């Protein structure tokens, strides 16, 4: 059976009218609590990705 992994990726993004990947300030975080704190602090929404590999 293939090894199962759960990956959590959180992207803090300004969503300022351009693709998130184009903005140097956008970055992926792997700590949901930290991302939520930064979101509250900066006022930026989060894009939270859950990945489960079977």
């Amino acid at each position, binding site marked *: 059976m293939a090894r*199962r992994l*759960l990956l*959590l990726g959180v992207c803090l993004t300004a*969503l300022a*009218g351009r*693709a*998130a990947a184009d903005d140097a300030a956008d970055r992926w975080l792997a700590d*949901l609590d930290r991302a*939520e704190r930064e*979101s*509250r602090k*900066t*006022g*930026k*929404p*989060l*894009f*939270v*990705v*859950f*990945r*489960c*590999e*079977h």
Partner: protein
Amino acid sequence: MRDVNLAKYQFDYDLTWAGLFVSPDGRVLGRYGGRDAESADGKVSLKGLRYAMEAARKANRERPPPKAAPERRTVADYPGLKRLGPTACVHCHQVHELQRDALQARGEWGLDKLWVYPPPENVGLTLEVDRGNVVARVAPKSAAEKAGLRQGDVIRTIGGEPVASFADAQYALHRHESNEPLAAVWLRDGKEMAGKLELADGWRKSDISWRWSLRQLEPSPWVHGDDLTSQEKKALGLGEKRLALRQGNFVTPPARQAGIRQNDIIIGVDGRELEMTGRQFAVYVKLNYKVGDKVTYNLLRDGKRVDVELTLAGRP
């Protein structure tokens, strides 16, 4: 998923990929991902993701302040977590399993609870992949058609939930657990329109055979393997859609005890000729039988029909 707040991060936990847009004050603005039985990625695209992101951005700007502190619920609240062990990784699909366990423990479980996150096609709506709330097609005589929806309409809300993606539509339908009419609001030529989706019995049902969370649901069919190809079926005189599951090289103890052998081809059960895949057959058994039932598997062995009686034993 061990420490994830499930009260906030609600999505179809059988998915291998799901995205949620979340406001700084912790509200989910929208969801992306979602699938049906046909394909894991047939309902998603990068354009569709961008479309949903722009909708989330707009919703974030326009959102009113929250009314109450968000609730918190994690897998630790489910008694079934104990059987996974204190340090075991909890996979997404196991959340559905833990929820099922909890319902069973409270006596609230029923098979109807299996049909989670119904696809919008269940109410007659096919949505565009690149613009996830634009109606690509309305099925004739469907709830959507009777409500007044047409191709090209832009869905605003279903059941009061905003819709910008297939996943949003699924979430809105998932939250509606009854057959009561479901309100829909949409735009047509810039004008807002509204209607009610009249829902028939069983409206939530769809092909759920792809769901990983069903694998532990009892009873197990105790047979498994690959479907025959179209050519193989034809060579045996079987129709294209006919069930034809070739037992793999590992024969489970209950199947072995019943006399099932590697390479036996399961084509039916209790004399019923079934039109389905092997994966769908596993769910068929779970939906129609109980642990302890005796079933007769109808097989082909070396080209000859053989019937084998098997007891659907519980898992050890």
